């Protein structure tokens, strides 16, 4: 039986770079906060973006209030790992020696899955109220996943790390995170795509790999950046046009609109055929990234059937 999104503790928003993950993460954050959840939206990107969507100054790595029951944070994986080490090695002198040692630096930079694991581990610690005494109590963490590579690398990391490191605190943390990720009652995975060939291909592969490697289904797929549908009258006009080149010259806007929309519809049809789960379609809007865009996208999402199903 499906669980409402409003009761999940962790929501991971994943997708290829440039598909609008951050606006979807912000949209979900504002919706969850409105539903009464104390929500932290965290992004993993050295160039902060999320704060702009929510209309607050850059977080600089701290947990920053962005509204009623809403917080943002920009995460640096290396900083999260370093903090963890500092906490483990209670003495300053020793932790400095460790943090400065080339072995530590190369190990943490290179160990498979460690950075991804650190980000998810941080989410878990925030949820458990272990992220520092000044941190607010948080019911839900929404993670705007890094654009690098497949989201699967992030989601499979806890399992990988808990198998590679078989004892100690990192093992315990990664085992707990792996459990959280595998639990459909407590966590959800949302994928964002554009209606273009490569992003659609990747999101379908993501759904498949998630199923086989993490044992999870995507909760929701968001198709972003859609052009408005072309009115039937315009479609009819097109079928009467014998000379495409002449039309392109006479009505470049209409020509471009029809072609972009037609290729997006082809990809939407492919998604509908190969992805049986819930999908929300979001339009390309004439707005730059910011609270106004997020609010407008949220209204669009709320009008769709798949949105209602998320909260029941």
């Amino acid at each position, binding site marked *: 039986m499906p669980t409402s999104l409003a009761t999940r503790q962790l929501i991971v928003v994943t997708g*290829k*770079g*440039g598909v609008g993950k951050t606006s979807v993460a912000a949209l979900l954050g504002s919706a969850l906060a409105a539903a009464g959840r104390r929500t932290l939206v965290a992004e993993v*990107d*050295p*160039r902060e973006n999320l704060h702009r969507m929510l209309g607050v100054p850059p977080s600089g790595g701290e947990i920053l209030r962005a509204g009623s029951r809403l917080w943002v944070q920009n995460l640096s994986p290396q900083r999260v790992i370093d903090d963890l*080490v500092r906490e*483990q*090695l209670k003495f300053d002198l*020793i932790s400095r020696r*460790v943090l400065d*040692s*080339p*072995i530590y630096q*190369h*190990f943490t*930079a*290179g*160990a*498979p*899955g460690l*950075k991804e694991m650190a980000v998810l581990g941080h989410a878990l610690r925030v949820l458990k109220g272990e992220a520092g005494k000044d941190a607010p109590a948080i019911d839900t963490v929404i993670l705007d996943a*890094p*654009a*690098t590579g497949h989201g699967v*690398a992030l989601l499979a990391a806890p399992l*990988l790390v808990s198998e*590679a*490191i*078989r*004892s*100690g*605190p*990192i*093992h315990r943390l990664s085992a707990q995170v792996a459990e959280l990720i595998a639990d459909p009652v407590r966590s959800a995975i949302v994928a964002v795509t*554009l209606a273009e*060939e*490569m*992003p659609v*291909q990747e999101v379908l592969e993501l759904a498949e790999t998630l199923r086989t490697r993490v044992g999870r289904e995507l909760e929701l797929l968001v198709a972003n950046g859609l*052009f*408005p549908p*072309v*009115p039937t009258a315009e479609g009819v006009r097109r079928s009467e046009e014998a000379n495409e080149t002449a039309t*392109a010259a006479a009505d*470049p*806007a*209409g*020509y*471009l*609109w029809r*072609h*972009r*929309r037609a*290729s997006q519809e082809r990809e939407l049809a492919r998604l509908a055929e190969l992805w049986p789960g819930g999908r929300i379609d979001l339009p*390309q*809007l*004439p707005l*730059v*990234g910011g609270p106004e865009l997020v609010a407008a996208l949220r209204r669009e999402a709320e009008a769709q059937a798949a949105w209602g199903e998320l909260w029941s």
Partner: protein
Amino acid sequence: MELISNDAPLLVFVGAGGVGKTTLAAATALRAAREGKRTLVMTFDPSLRLKDALGVGEEARDREVPVDLAGLAEIHPGGSLHASLLDARRTFDRLIERYAPDNQARDRILGNSFYGQLSGSLGGILEYMAVERLFEAARDGHYDQVILDTPPTRQALDFLEAPARIVGFLDSGALKVALKPWFDEKGRLKPAARWGGLGRRFEGFLDDVVGLDLLRDMAEFFQVFAPLFTGFRERASEVEDLLRSPRTRFVLVAGPGEEAIPDALFFARRLAQAGLHLGAMVVNRVHPLLPFPPEGRFDGRHLLAWLGERDRIGLARLAELAGPRQPLLPVPLSADEPTDLPALAALGDFLAEGLAEGS
């Protein structure tokens, strides 16, 4: 400026994911081939349609596959195009096969479980392997023009630092520590190691936090890998020299719109800091300038007019920030993505001619 030039036999396409780098790299390669150059294009993850257009399949992961140019007009004699798909794991395996002193050492490395995880998922290795392949192709002399498409990540410039990182690691002393005989025959930490220079508390920390099993796998990996390091180190610094050479030119591809400007400037700055040579900046898929329709219901025409205006402002700001001496070419959004050879060839012509006119 000349996009294809005898002075720049290596072209590297960089930029954020999803901006169309791969398509532009393929289009440029077609142009080079038609100008009469023996050309190789190396790419990571082309779309199915692009693979179809070039006529390459999975076999391109193992070797360079010739692209049939017979359908194209205006090909100078001697021109040819090969394509290959980059696969980090296979390149790494090949490297080990080359540098391993004997078959036994090779099999031990390929079978080590740490190596299995390392070459599959270690950040930076994929990127390093791309430049490694570039180096191979540049050195073997079969090609006049080599074009490299870079990994589809937002941190796409990591690969530029990969050779330096590997050299840094090999020189850092970390390796010496890793190569110490930490473990005895039974896989237990040796007392000497436990009490060694790093101190007992650090040992205790490693044991506690990382766990000794992982360290055992790593130690074994480094020990079997050790004989390869000399060759590997030399290779990594040669690769680094090649990237910095003025004969290697970077083409920075950016998306349109104001929101893409920070990305483009970030890449340009990183290239300059790393001492790499930026040739052209290409802003891809720029929406055309279209009149706003008279007030009425919001529709596709209205949206396109807004996008055209957004891109115009973005382009003007980028041109201003990049400076008048930076070659910068906007590529208009086409109604349909170029997906066959003639369309790709036309895009290649647009790039070469547009950049030539700009100078």
